[in-house]
């Protein structure tokens, strides 16, 4: 039922929109919100309360309270009073069993009182512990804020946009507009964002600044970062100056029955009557502490609601007030024993500046005793508050008489916090239990922690607190304001589902060959191409090729390159001849192993350093840091992505290479640990003769744009030699057969080079190097544990991380273990007590609860004298 058309109304009566509520079609006008259309259709109960399942109706019509939350097209907790109607939208109630009007869970309101006191969830239902999952499921069912449809397809896409502004104005009310205009006149780049809920007036689109609406600032973070929820786009604003014009929020009054359906704040009256031409009810009572209530009385009269009584708390101080209802709806109000029938009760406890964003930005919030409100003070330099957000014109309920807080004695519940169903009794009880700091009481009672985020309960709860503890509001203070200031959809925060991944130039070739890909750090790498054993065999018997482009690659050059590397690494490089390579382990200043790789000398002053796949960035940063500290004349360049790298390994790798290059690849011409530059299949390569996988092999490093070409050429020309690509898993088996260590797998952040059997890499006679002092200390105290090889007596492969057990006690751990066809045994690496670090020592390893015997091995399991590797 609508009132006669008015020029002010926002509905277009010539256009109707149909949506569905609980499956039933509802007809609305264009310009309606879901809330106004449901109200027009006669609906008064919009939700059931969080704990007691009490019926709740429109309260603020401004998007501040929890009373109109519904599921809209699958999205839970949408405030329908501000959600525009759209054709075909499906709307459902939430947190009910049955229907909104007959919610079976309302029984909690009848019997629950004694069983669900404040903080009950901290005390009851926690024993027996076993039963918690059931309790949890039960609680989730009866309390909460809608359900997420886990199977729903993404209904919309969410994007993130980065924006800049010299001045960002939050709020498009009169003060916000003034601020925006003034800044624009000063020649600033100004953007104004408005929630678009100030439906009273259409925001003017003005020259000189940009207006974005509906858009809601959800927080102010460090550095002037302001995320703005603009529907399906999250705008991440960085602003030099932020002007907060977020206005003030109308406050409720505390009296028994203050949550009944039909109890309205003045804004609800204004919007229902003016924007949507709706009559809020037949007979109204107004209780107000400010002029807003009086204006609401006017609006009501104009809408044809008779106003039976207006109580102005500034002039009368009633000793008792209470609302009574039936079926959750207000039926009468009694003031000092004088009862008046009504179906609408307007309450206005004044207005409180919406200071939360300011407080997040670092403002202090102070109680102004004369006006009875909290006001923001000491704003940080780049933040400004204007209008009622700054406290202008706002006025609280300082004049509200004590009687209005005299709660439950006069029957019925008096709600301090409607989001969380916290009554005055609950707050008093919390105080009696000793929660006398407001921060603790907040956590205990959960006041201010619901969907309204303190908009309607912060001020009343603190005032009640002050009264009950006989303290001044000012000394009680406020609770910490944290983002988000408004509920925000997780999808919007998550944005698009792209995860940065590094892929080598051969990624698509691997996929074409059916490789199973796996993550190693940020990299995607082939685990294998389907037949691990065959891939291992190819490397042992013929030739295999593995993509090692992920290796970190650094060029270190300059006159001081030798000094620089010698000071960084425990190893020596001054005596490394150009064209030669050395294995190197990088340590921290505490002597711990940080990374490993090879260092090849390209010329007197040029070195080529490889790092682990996941260590490149860390090592680069480490190099740059020390270079800056020491001030050497050295430059470091990260050429990881510039170069692809292939390891061609196996007894036939030499013959294959000879077909593709003019380089002398004979054992004398190109020996183990030599580095050469030459063209391979026409592509300029740096060739390193090293052998992580233990067979004769060459690493080819070359410009990445030619990776597919060279890969294809190798596979083609090696086909008759049985060439096979191999993945990480075969590589791990091959290197384990040689007892080659993988840093990060066989070592951890505590391991040092001495304990890891790499003392041959540590040159204590050098002047100084990073970690020298710490390693000298380790040498003096002797090893605490040693990294050794082991082979299982009976072929069981123990789990990585498995326990080494000595005399029934854990004494070490397995770091790597695999079955090796070539060795014919289950082999691995493990940390063991030094006393057991001898060839043939017997150890026991826990496998599935059993102890399995194993023997310690100090030499490689396969080709212990490196004859094949050096062939």
């Amino acid at each position: 039922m609508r009132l006669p058309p008015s020029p002010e109304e926002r509905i277009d009566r010539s256009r109707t929109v149909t949506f569905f509520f609980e499956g039933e079609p509802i007809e609305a006008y264009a310009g309606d919100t879901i809330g106004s259309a449901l109200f027009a259709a006669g609906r008064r109960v919009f939700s059931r309360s969080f704990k007691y399942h009490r019926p709740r109706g429109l309260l603020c019509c401004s998007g501040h309270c929890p009373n109109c939350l519904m599921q809209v097209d699958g999205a839970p907790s949408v405030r329908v009073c501000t959600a525009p109607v759209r054709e075909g939208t499906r709307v459902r109630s939430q947190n009910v069993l049955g229907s909104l009007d007959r919610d079976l869970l309302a029984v909690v309101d009848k019997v629950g009182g004694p069983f669900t006191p404040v903080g009950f969830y901290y005390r009851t239902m926690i024993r027996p512990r076993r039963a918690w999952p059931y309790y949890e499921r039960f609680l989730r069912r009866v309390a909460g804020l809608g359900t997420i449809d886990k199977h729903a397809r993404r209904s919309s896409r969410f994007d993130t946009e980065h924006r800049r502004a010299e001045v960002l104005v939050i709020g498009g009310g009169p003060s916000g507009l003034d601020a925006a205009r003034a800044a624009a006149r000063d020649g600033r780049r100004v953007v104004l964002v408005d929630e678009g809920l100030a439906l009273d007036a259409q925001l003017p689109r003005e020259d000189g600044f940009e207006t974005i609406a509906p858009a809601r600032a959800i927080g102010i973070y460090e550095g002037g970062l302001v995320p703005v929820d603009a529907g399906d786009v999250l705008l991440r604003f960085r602003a030099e100056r932020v002007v907060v014009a977020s206005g003030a929020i109308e406050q409720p009054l505390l009296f028994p029955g203050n949550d009944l359906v039909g109890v309205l704040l003045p804004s609800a009256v204004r919007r229902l009557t003016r924007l949507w031409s709706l009559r809020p009810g037949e007979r109204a009572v107004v209780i107000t502490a400010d002029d807003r209530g009086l204006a609401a009385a006017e609006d009501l009269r104009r809408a044809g609601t008779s106003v039976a009584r207006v109580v102005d708390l500034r002039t009368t101080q009633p000793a008792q007030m209470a609302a009574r209802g039936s079926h959750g709806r207000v039926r009468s109000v009694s003031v000092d024993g004088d009862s008046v029938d009504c179906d609408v009760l307007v309450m206005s406890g004044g207005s409180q500046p919406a200071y939360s964003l300011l407080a997040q930005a670092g403002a202090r919030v102070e109680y102004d005793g004369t006006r009875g409100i909290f006001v923001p003070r000491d704003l940080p330099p780049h933040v400004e508050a204007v209008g009622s957000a700054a406290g202008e014109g706002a006025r609280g309920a300082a004049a509200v008489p004590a009687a209005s807080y005299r709660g439950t004695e006069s029957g019925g519940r008096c709600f301090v916090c409607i989001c969380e169903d916290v009554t005055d009794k609950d707050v008093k009880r919390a105080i009696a239990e000793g929660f006398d700091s407001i921060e603790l009481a907040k956590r205990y009672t959960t006041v201010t922690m619901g969907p309204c985020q303190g908009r309607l309960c912060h001020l009343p709860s603190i005032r009640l607190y002050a009264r009950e503890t006989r303290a001044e509001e000012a000394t009680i203070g406020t609770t910490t304001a944290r983002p988000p200031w408004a509920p925000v959809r997780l999808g919007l925060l998550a944005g698009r589902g792209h995860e940065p991944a590094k892929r080598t130039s051969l990624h698509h070739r691997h996929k074409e060959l059916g490789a199973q890909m796996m993550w190693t750090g940020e990299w995607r790498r082939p685990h294998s191409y389907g037949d691990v054993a065959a891939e291992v065999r190819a490397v042992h018997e013929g030739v295999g090729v593995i993509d090692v482009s992920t290796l970190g690659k650094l060029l270190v050059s300059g006159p001081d390159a030798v000094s620089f590397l010698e000071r960084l690494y425990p190893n020596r490089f001054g005596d490394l001849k150009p064209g030669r390579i050395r294995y190197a382990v990088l340590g921290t200043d505490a002597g711990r192993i940080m990374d490993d790789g090879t260092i090849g000398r390209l010329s007197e002053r040029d070195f080529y350093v490889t790092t682990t796949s996941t260590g490149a960035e860390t090592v680069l940063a480490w190099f740059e840091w020390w270079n800056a500290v020491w001030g050497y004349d050295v430059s470091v360049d990260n050429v990881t992505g510039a170069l692809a790298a292939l390891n061609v390994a196996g007894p036939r790798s030499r013959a294959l290479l000879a077909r593709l290059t003019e380089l002398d690849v004979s054992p004398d011409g190109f020996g183990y640990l030599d580095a050469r530059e030459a063209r391979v299949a026409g592509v300029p390569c740096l060739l390193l003769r090293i052998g992580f996988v233990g067979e004769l092999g060459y690493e080819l490093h070359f410009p990445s744009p030619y990776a597919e070409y060279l890969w294809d050429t190798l596979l083609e020309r090696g086909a008759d030699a049985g060439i096979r690509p191999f993945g990480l898993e075969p590589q791990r088996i091959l290197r384990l057969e040689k007892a080659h260590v993988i840093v990060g797998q066989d070592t951890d952040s505590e391991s040092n080079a001495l304990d890891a059997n790499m003392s041959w890499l540590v040159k204590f006679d050098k002047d100084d190097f990073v970690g020298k002092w710490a390693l000298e200390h380790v040498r003096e105290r002797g090893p605490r544990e040693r990294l050794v090889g082991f082979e299982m007596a009976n072929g069981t492969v123990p789990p990585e991380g498995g326990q080494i057990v000595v005399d029934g006690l854990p004494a070490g751990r397995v770091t790597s273990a695999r079955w090796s066809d070539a060795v014919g045994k289950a082999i691995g690496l493990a940390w063991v007590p030094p006393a057991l670090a001898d060839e043939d020592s017997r150890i026991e390893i826990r496998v599935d609860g059993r102890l399995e015997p194993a023997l310690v091995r100090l030499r490689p399991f396969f080709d212990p004298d490196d004859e094949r590797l050096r062939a």
Partner: protein
Amino acid sequence: MSRDFLAVELAPADGFEPRWRSPLERALRDAPPGIRDLSRTGKLHVHGDVGAPPGVEVVRVAPDRALVLCAAADVERVRGELGERVVDMSAALAGLEVRGERLMRRLADLDLDALPAAGAVAHVPATVLRDGDAFRIFFPQEYADHVGAVVLDAAAGLA
């Protein structure tokens, strides 16, 4: 040794014809107009002060380091002119051009009025240059598939 193994522009040799392939080739296969692959641009890292030879662009990416951009065919010449402390990074960086501020704002948290600058694009480190409505983005090529997918997706979101 010469560091020839970093050179990208190759002539056929020894009977082989090496084929260059852009890291973005696959990712941009279905790219809408306005998104272009610039991966073949010549890119050099120079340490210390840089004088700009004719026909090149110099972007200072750190106090002591610059990215020099030139035509692929000119890399050899420019490398010679820039002196010793130069590394050919042509293969290390992929490059693409996008059009429109709005698209760029969905890709990067950068002040678009203060370009060129270094910063994150699609969450990976990048250098961005601006020519009117066009933005050139250079980033580590190993992220090419990722950045290509993000750019196409963002463009689709605005279409």
